[in-house]
Structures are given as structure tokens and as C-alpha cells.
């Protein structure tokens, strides 16, 4: 062992020395009262620090933290629930409208004589569909359908915009 220094004494306290190093240190220390006193006091510091107690956080910290979180960040579950309802409503309405358009399609009877091949059948279907669509557009239903879609789209955009604005505002208040 070269020399007894503070680093060695600390390693002794932390149990980082080998058996041989411990024996050497104990031998040298027994001949050096100053080092022995340093080691004893270091051990006392170590023992006293092990008995230190944590400071208690101020009262009501948990309630205040939760209140801050609730006001700053919307509940994940509620947020998802809200968006699911809006999006489901929108999708169901669109599906309903498409169903209405498709069920109102009635194939014409006078063209069946020449629709023999598959390509001819598809062509016939498309042409009939376009004709049907044109008739719907030309009819009174068209205004009703467009108005309903626009209303739903506007409601959806409004809710999404408001939700985004509110979230951004809360996020800003958290960051700053």
C-alpha cells in the first residue's frame, strides 16, 4: 500500500477495497493515530447520514398537483370519447346518405337485350348510375342532401377547431 489518503478511506467506507487492501489499511492505520481518527469520524459521518430523514412536502401538494393537471391537460379518456362520438356521427351520416342514393337506383328494363358481356354490363351500370345521379341532382332531394352534408361538415370543423384552440391555450399556459 502506497499511502493512506482520503480516497482510500472513502473506498474502505463504501466496501470497495479487496481483502488484502483492507488488511494493509488496517495495519497502517493502527500505527497512525491521525488517520485512525479521520477514518473513525468518516464512519460516523456515514452512519449519521444513513439516519437522515426526508423533508416533508407541504400539505395538500397532491390535491394541488392533481388540480393543476386537470385544468392544464384534458382527461385522455374524455378527450378520446368526445372525438369518437363526433367522428362516428359524421361517418354514419355519410354512410346513410350513400345508402339512400344506392337504394334509390332502379335499373332500366329496356336495355337488357344487349347487355350480354361483363364489360357491357359494367358500362350499362355506370351509365345508369350517372343517369340516376343526374336525376337526383336535378330533383328536390339534391338540396336536402347537400345542405345536410354541409351542416355536418361545418359542425365537425367547428368542434375540431374549438377543441384544438382550447388544447393549444392550455398547452401554452403549461409551457409558459
Amino acid at each position, binding site marked *: 500500500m502506497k499511502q493512506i489518503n482520503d480516497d482510500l478511506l*472513502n473506498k474502505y467506507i463504501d466496501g470497495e477495497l479487496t481483502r488484502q487492501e483492507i488488511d494493509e489499511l488496517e495495519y497502517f492505520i493502527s500505527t497512525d493515530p491521525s488517520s485512525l481518527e479521520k477514518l473513525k469520524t468518516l464512519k460516523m*459521518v*456515514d452512519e*449519521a447520514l444513513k439516519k437522515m430523514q426526508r423533508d416533508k412536502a407541504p400539505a395538500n401538494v397532491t390535491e394541488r*398537483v392533481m388540480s393543476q393537471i386537470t385544468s392544464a391537460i384534458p382527461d385522455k379518456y374524455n378527450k378520446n370519447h368526445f372525438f369518437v362520438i363526433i367522428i362516428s356521427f359524421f361517418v354514419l351520416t355519410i354512410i346513410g346518405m350513400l345508402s339512400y342514393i344506392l337504394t334509390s337506383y332502379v335499373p332500366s328494363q329496356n336495355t337488357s337485350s344487349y347487355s350480354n358481356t361483363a364489360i357491357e354490363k359494367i358500362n350499362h351500370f355506370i351509365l345508369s348510375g350517372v343517369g340516376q345521379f343526374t336525376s337526383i341532382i336535378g330533383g328536390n332531394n339534391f338540396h336536402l342532401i347537400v345542405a345536410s352534408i354541409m351542416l355536418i361538415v361545418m359542425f365537425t370543423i367547428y368542434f375540431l377547431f374549438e377543441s384544438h384552440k382550447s388544447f393549444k391555450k392550455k398547452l401554452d399556459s403549461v409551457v409558459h
Partner: protein
Amino acid sequence: MKNLTELEIIESVKRGNQTDFTLLVDMYKDRAFSLLKRLLKNEMDAEEALMDSFLKVYKSLPNFRFESKFSTWFYKIVYNTGLTFLSSKNRRIDNETSSIDEYFELGENDDEIYANAENGKEYLLKLVDKLPPRHALIIILFYIDDLSLNEISQVLDLSLVNTKVLLHRSRNGLRDMLLKHNYQEEIL
């Protein structure tokens, strides 16, 4: 109160059960406050930083991937929040190199501390509060929170060697002050 493990609480909060976060706050509020009080050297600042810390932990929890112990990840957020708080108050912790080479003089206010301490133990605890922030934090994390030196080095963003150096210096400084007042026989 629910009887959940730390892991179950974290997973529950990540699933969106916001109220289960109260369990985590209850588990960690004293630890975080002890750390922030030593870092900021002021109870009111520590309280404010404590609120910010928990808010950041809540917001960052979805990103916690269990790649390290939760306590290490948590203390790192608390420590960084404390540093941000210090910089906002135009105070700062020196970088690693200068901090390691930093000389600290515990004897600066010693007369006052010694006069107000009723015994050796109280004197020692008051001295811990007078240690430079990083030195004090290492003492708290090592002795009270039972973090390993490796975990402490991750929290404080120091190398393992430098973490060990700071711990040794802190203990040596405290020891020298006890020897100065002949407290060595009394403290235990």
C-alpha cells in the same frame, strides 16, 4: 386507496386513468421536495418547482418505456426542472468540469451554524444544507433515496467517476468540520 404496485400505477396512468397519478404523487412528493429544497436552497421555490416537476412527469409519462428504473427517470425530470427554475432566477449550476474542481468552504458560516446547533447531529444536517447543490444532492440521493452511484450519475448527468469524487469530497468536508469542533465522539 388502491393497492397497486408502482408498475401497475404507471401503466394505469398511461392507459388514461388520470386519478391514479395521485398514487405516484403521494409516493414521490417527499423525495422530490427534499431534492429540490437542497438544489434551490429555498422552500417556496422548491414548492413551485415541485408542482412543475409533477406536471412534466405526467405529460412525459406516455414516453416512459421502462428502459431505466422509474425513480431514475423521475429524479432526472425533477433535477432538470430545478435547473430550469434556477436559470429562470438567473442562478445556475456550473458545468461538470468546473463543478468537480469547485472548492467549497463549509467554514464560511460555521460560527453561526455551530452556535445554532444543539448537538453534533443537528450540526451535521445543517452543514449538508450548506454544501454546494450537486454535493448536497448526491448526499440526499445516496443516503436517503438509496440510489446507486450509477443511477445518481444518470440523474445528474455526470460521469460515474466524477459522481464518486463529489460524494467523497462531501463526506470529507463534513468530517473535517466535525473534527474541528470535536463532535466525532458525540454524533452517534
